[in-house]
């Protein structure tokens, strides 16, 4: 997307013609902080690099490689994209705080899955926000998939129930359930989500097979708390990181990977139906050093 143009690496300009010394490590620290890595991870990574530097002469190029290794190690690379063949039907529940991009990501996913030849059903589990179901319905049209919806103010667990029934009745391959945005601090809303989850599991064995937490790349340190509490409540199994087409770097996913072991599965890079990509840790790390 739009940031792709500026390829002059911040790290490159940082490293070129310089010695690897304390001052350089300080600059690197700044770079990590401003990419929202958080203080703990930044301190941790810098300390690891200091250790490596102390063990011997290090060229700027070697430092770059070392940094990449340190970051990649924390990003939990082993988990890749979703394997929809694990279950029939495969059920995805999408959760997250307000406005991060849940509904949009569902629209994009529906399109990708249908393109792979899957039959997809969407459940409009956000019955709270004004016109949330209409929004999902439009995405359903774009992707050419059916959307199960109830009226405004309906019980989202009832939507989940009907969506699961419809998925079985249509012999669909994938059900993606949208949920209302909620802050992780709202106890009753977190309980509501657990109930939705139980309903899915009762109707379809093993469901949800994936609980996808959507995080906004512009979010700072609060993203870690979000991930922690959503994981506690509904056993989040993966992350979609949205809005990476802006100038924010989304560095918090590194702390989340390190602490919670949650893999980033997808990144959102725009508002269009095709603006969803599998997460590529190399590209992610490279983008950190891109001039914004």
């Amino acid at each position, binding site marked *: 997307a739009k940031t792709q143009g500026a390829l002059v690496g911040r790290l490159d300009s940082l490293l070129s013609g310089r010695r690897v010394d304390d001052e350089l490590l300080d600059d690197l620290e700044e770079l990590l902080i401003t*990419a929202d890595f958080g203080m703990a991870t930044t301190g941790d990574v810098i300390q690891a690099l200091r250790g490596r530097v102390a063990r011997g002469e290090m060229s700027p190029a070697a430092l770059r490689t070392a940094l990449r290794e340190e970051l990649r190690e924390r990003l939990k690379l082993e988990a890749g994209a979703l394997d929809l063949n694990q279950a029939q039907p495969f059920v995805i529940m999408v959760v997250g705080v*307000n406005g991060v991009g849940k509904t949009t990501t569902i629209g994009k996913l529906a399109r990708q899955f249908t393109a792979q030849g899957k039959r997809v059903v969407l459940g409009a589990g956000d019955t709270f926000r004004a016109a949330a179901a209409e929004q999902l319905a439009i995405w359903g049209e774009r992707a050419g998939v059916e959307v199960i919806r109830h009226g405004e103010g309906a019980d989202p667990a009832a939507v989940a129930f009907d969506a699961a029934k419809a998925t079985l009745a249509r012999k669909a391959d994938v059900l993606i359930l949208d949920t209302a945005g909620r802050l992780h601090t709202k106890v009753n809303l977190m309980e509501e989500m657990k109930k939705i989850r139980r309903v899915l599991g009762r109707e379809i064995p093993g469901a949800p097979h994936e609980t996808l937490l959507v995080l906004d790349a512009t979010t700072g340190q609060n993203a870690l708390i979000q991930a922690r509490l959503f994981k506690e409540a509904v056993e989040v199994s993966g992350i979609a990181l949205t809005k990476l087409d802006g100038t924010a770097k989304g560095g918090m996913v590194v702390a989340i990977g390190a602490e919670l072991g949650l893999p980033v599965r997808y990144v959102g890079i725009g*508002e269009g139906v095709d603006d969803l990509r599998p997460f590529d840790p190399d590209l992610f790390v490279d983008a950190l050093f891109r001039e914004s």
Partner: protein
Amino acid sequence: MLDNLTEKFDSIFKKLRGHGRLTEENIKEALREVRLVLLEADVNFKVVKDFVEAVRERAVGQDVLKSLTPAQQVIKVVRDELGRLMGEGEDNRLDFGGRPPVAVMLCGLQGAGKTTSCGKLALKLRRDKRNPLLVPADVYRPAAIDQLKTVGRQLDIPVYDSQPDQDPVAICEAARRFAELNGYDTLILDTAGRLHIDATLMGELVRIKESLAPKEILLVADAMTGQDAVNVAASFDEQLSLTGVILTKLDGDARGGAALSIRAVTGKPIKLVGLGEKMDALEVFHPDRMAQRILGMGDVLSLIEKA
């Protein structure tokens, strides 16, 4: 967090208690803690740097007061400086002066809370005995117009009847004529979410501004925003000359360092805060409360204020 900072400060200043003055040397460690606390609250790196410098300048050379411990004294400097930066004592009321209909434009990144804030603002204005018209000028996001119309229906506040195939500038202009004819005194323009680096869409906002001359151009910003808040705010301000900010989603547990960052880079006041999804969850901004929140401080501050 507060206890944390006070405790840390207390142990840092143990030796200084009751005598001497604050020197560069003896506040150094305390400043390091301040820096950490602010960075952990998501205050922008550069803003933190300037802030710590300002605190150093004000603290160094002060006599240690009898009524406060040195720890409390530094915290007081930090807190005062933060309050000043957050615009304490400044007028942050909305300005609706001029010939009606007066326009208010809300803008910001995707998902920040613009549409919701438009509804909240309309409700607030009606309670202030104004007669607002909501104007859906987001023709891009699926069902954005529907969303605002639904909000308007819930509040029983009229919404201009726009369609997704219209041009946003044309919508706003037509809405103004409609308001003139029907006696609405305030237009609340709900614009589409956009990236500050999206030249085309930013240009659209500039055109709306030129045509409607809004009295208020408010950036709607999410309190959970991290380091990028400065880039976003500076860029919107540069292109549109903001008159203020609405900080949303403060009902969560985010420390809200974005507030300080935005304020510092734009110098524009935060006028309102969003404290929930419901339509009455909009309040005026209190710089002092925000300063305490960023520092993670509670009641001890009010104790210090009395000292």
